[in-house]
């Protein structure tokens, strides 16, 4: 019988979040565990290597370990995309990336800083709190299939309803009659009938015009203005998601490059970059299979965390070193790799506060380093330091990390690509809209690098 113990599964304080997370683990583990064990038996019988499982933290772990605690894999899918973003960051030598993966129904946003995907120490999933470290991904309901509509106050809205893949946008010609983001692109000519989409789908231009035209009449706009408006509202939705992930977390997006992927991402990248003051955009050539590449190249990782609540004379170098060593030992044991390297994160606050800031600078060693880094971060995020405030280390997290497969992205078959806006570039798996003022070339990895001219 699978057993879930809250101090093992979560290990941090705040009983409701810990209990809710453990309950989810107990509910999901029998299902995922049985599935993974069957899979393991069959890969073994077929003489294949044992599969690895992507965890919400963005690292891989043995299927046998994942089978014991399903909660570690709840965000497995989006974490694959985040791992891919880290892969591109390494391959292109761009340590700071804002990533947005826009598909048919939604848009996932994450941040790579210093080559690492930013983590959060917990979030809500389907209305339930999950108090475990995971890649910090924010999802908004704006995708190519998001439906545009007029609300009772006369505003143009986009989403959260989506036409999905069936019937899909009106332009798919499968019976969809409501105007979507994709239809707006067709009306404006960024997507055309001359160029079939990935999968050979031919666009029905007339159906798109009819759908957008009906909404335009309702709003009293001409159809092209309406189509441009649909894109502007959808972009605003995504810009808000990117602001939540950056400005609300104390990061200035202007120093970052924008990594756009997913079927619709590169169509919107330039407008979004302009809104945020970003001057560099990366579009990976393998846009549609990027997540799979991310999975193949991800690190193996086991994260352990413990609430310590140390402050004052109890927060010493020795106490810190002991706790780090104990958690690293647990993580290495899970990975079966005694050489796995530690990634340490400290959740710290002023005594008396109840929200922590995560301090994960790899250079930090002693207790005073942690105190100083926290005070600096607090001032940066909130604009003030607490005079005489006592710094409290609430939770320590240590990820034991074994490096993943070395993967080289190369673009040997392709001639380097050179492009200047305004242009629409049709790649095998995506379409890139390049407005006036943007231009660039593909690099050795096949990634298209666009720059804003001054």
């Amino acid at each position, binding site marked *: 019988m699978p057993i879930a113990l809250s101090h093992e599964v979560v290990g941090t304080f705040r009983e409701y979040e810990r209990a809710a997370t453990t309950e989810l683990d107990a509910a999901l583990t029998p299902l995922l565990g049985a599935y993974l064990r069957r899979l393991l038996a069959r890969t073994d019988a077929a003489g294949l290597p044992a599969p690895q499982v992507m965890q919400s933290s963005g690292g891989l772990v043995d299927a046998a370990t994942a089978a014991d605690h399903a909660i570690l894999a709840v965000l497995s899918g989006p974490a694959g995309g985040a791992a891919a973003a880290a892969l591109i960051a390494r391959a292109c030598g761009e340590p700071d990336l804002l990533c947005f993966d826009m598909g048919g129904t939604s848009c996932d946003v994450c941040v790579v800083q210093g080559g690492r995907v930013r983590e959060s120490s917990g979030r809500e999933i389907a209305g339930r709190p999950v108090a475990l470290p995971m890649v910090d991904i924010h999802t908004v309901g704006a995708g190519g299939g998001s439906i545009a509509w007029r609300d*009772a106050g006369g505003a143009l809205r986009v989403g959260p309803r989506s036409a999905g893949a069936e019937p899909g946008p009106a332009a798919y010609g499968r019976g969809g009659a409501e105007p979507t983001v994709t239809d707006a692109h067709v009306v404006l000519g960024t997507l055309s009938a001359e160029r079939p989409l990935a999968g050979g789908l031919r666009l029905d231009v007339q159906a798109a015009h009819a759908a957008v035209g009906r909404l335009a009449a309702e709003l009293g*706009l001409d159809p092209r203005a309406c189509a441009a408006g649909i894109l502007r509202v959808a972009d605003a939705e995504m810009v808000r998601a990117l602001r939540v992930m950056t400005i609300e977390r104390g990061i200035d997006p202007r120093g970052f490059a924008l990594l756009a992927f997913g079927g619709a991402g590169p169509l919107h990248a330039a407008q979004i970059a302009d809104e945020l003051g970003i001057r560099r955009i990366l579009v990976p050539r393998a846009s549609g299979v990027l997540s799979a590449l991310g999975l193949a190249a991800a690190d193996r990782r086991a994260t352990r965390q413990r609430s310590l609540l140390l402050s004052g004379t109890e927060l010493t170098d020795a106490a810190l070193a002991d706790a780090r060593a104990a958690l690293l030992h647990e993580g290495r044991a899970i990975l079966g790799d005694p050489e796995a390297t530690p990634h340490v994160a400290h959740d710290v606050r002023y005594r008396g506060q109840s*929200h922590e800031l995560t301090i994960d600078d790899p250079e930090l060693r002693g207790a005073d380093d942690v105190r100083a880094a926290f005070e600096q971060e607090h001032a940066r*995020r909130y604009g003030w330091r607490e005079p005489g405030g006592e710094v409290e280390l609430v939770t320590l997290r240590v990820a034991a990390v074994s490096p993943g497969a070395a993967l080289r992205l190369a673009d040997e078959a392709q001639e380097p690509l050179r492009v200047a806006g305004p242009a629409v570039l049709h790649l095998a798996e995506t379409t890139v809209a390049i407005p006036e003022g943007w231009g660039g070339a593909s690099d050795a990895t096949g990634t298209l690098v666009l720059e804003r001219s001054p």
Partner: protein
Amino acid sequence: MSDLDPIALQVVSGALRAACEEMGAVLVRSSHSANIKERRDCSTALFDARARMVMQAEHIPVHLGAMPVAVAAVAARAQRPGVPWVLNDPFAGGTHLPDITVVTPAFAGGALLGFAASRAHHADVGGRVPGSMPADSTTLAEEGVVIPPSVLDDDLIDALAAQMRQPDERRADLHAQLAANATGVARLLELAERVGAHELGAATSAVLDYAERRTRACVAALPDGERRARDVLEGRDGDLELVLRATVRGDELVLDFTGSAPQHAGNLNCPLAVTSSACLFALRVLTDPDIPANAGAARPLTVRAPEGTLLHARPPAAVAAGNVETSSRVADLVLEAFGRALGQGTMNNITLGSDAFSYYETLGGGQGACPDADGPSGVHVAMSNTLNTPVEALELEFPLRVREYAVRRGSGGAGRHHGGDGVVRELEALTAMQYSLITERRRHRPRGADGGEPGAAGRNLLNGRELPPKASGALAPGDRLRIETPGGGGHGTPGTHRVVD
């Protein structure tokens, strides 16, 4: 109607909402009071240069209609860039004394652009008892420091903190409010830079008109006519009656409380701003919560409450419980008039403290059932929208032990759909301390609708002995205070179409 195209309308209103939410995030994450940081008893909002609220973050409903009054109280005076205001006077823009409001003007190139405002429930603002929520106050002065609209500088922060318990915490919380406002001002400036200061003024007017149009469309969908409701508050010296005549005519709603009890010698009195907040909250429930919370959404609503009554008190009435309890009953009256089953109808306010600490908490209970679903259990209802203080955080921070924290099974009213259950929270004092309880629905049960049964009444117990709805006194180490919160009313006749859980 100001004209803004349908696209800009959506873009600007989204940007304003994001700015308010960001202000809220800064406030919650950098404050010290458990009320603010754990329970999020705070609100943030942006105003235009004419002091009209253009957007409020969805935090605490009871602050909805009261924030505009606070900003109006300072907007009439001369504004200087970077010079913020503070107030808590319930008769000059406040609600009750623990809710301190900080207002910061935003300037673009020498011209006033608007205001950022934040309101937070501080753990203590001085007065007779720790936590500043006395169960038995009869005048405002007993409830704490009264701050008329004043310029907030470092000297005033020190002077205010010195009159309150835990002055370091008060100072930190005021700084957190200033930081939140600075964020709001910065976002307003960015927006003005992007669209132009003049255009921003036009855009905010358009966002107000937009909220008005959407609210009117929803009100127009309600059948015309007059509806009546009456209910009571459980005063120390007996019940106090509140009455409502709600009239829908076309796209306008009039809520008339004429005939309600006169203001009393206890602290269930409300400034009109609190009554308006409760009415606006109920209007949001009856319309569409997706409508921006702003001054435009309030235009189709008229609230009438004669001066000198419980719902429009004159100074120097005590008001500590008006904001938390009377406001809940006002919302109940409106919802009952429109056929809704009622939730627990009280915030179950507990304040514990000594010179060493102040702990204030409101407890969840049962929500009323809907026509198509059971009411949720153990949630904050109506005018309160806070989280609970985790047991582990509470025991670390205060000399208290939590003996029990559980769902109060069977307390929800039966019905085709059941009302939600209340909770049980039993606290043991580990040191000597004062307690103060301000609760309602101890004598009268939350009603069901359409044949649904009422939820169970709440109970307050000290070492097993039953206490009245409003109670205060001393606790010795080992004493146990047990609160059982009310269940919600059921909806529909029980057994008519019971869905088995």
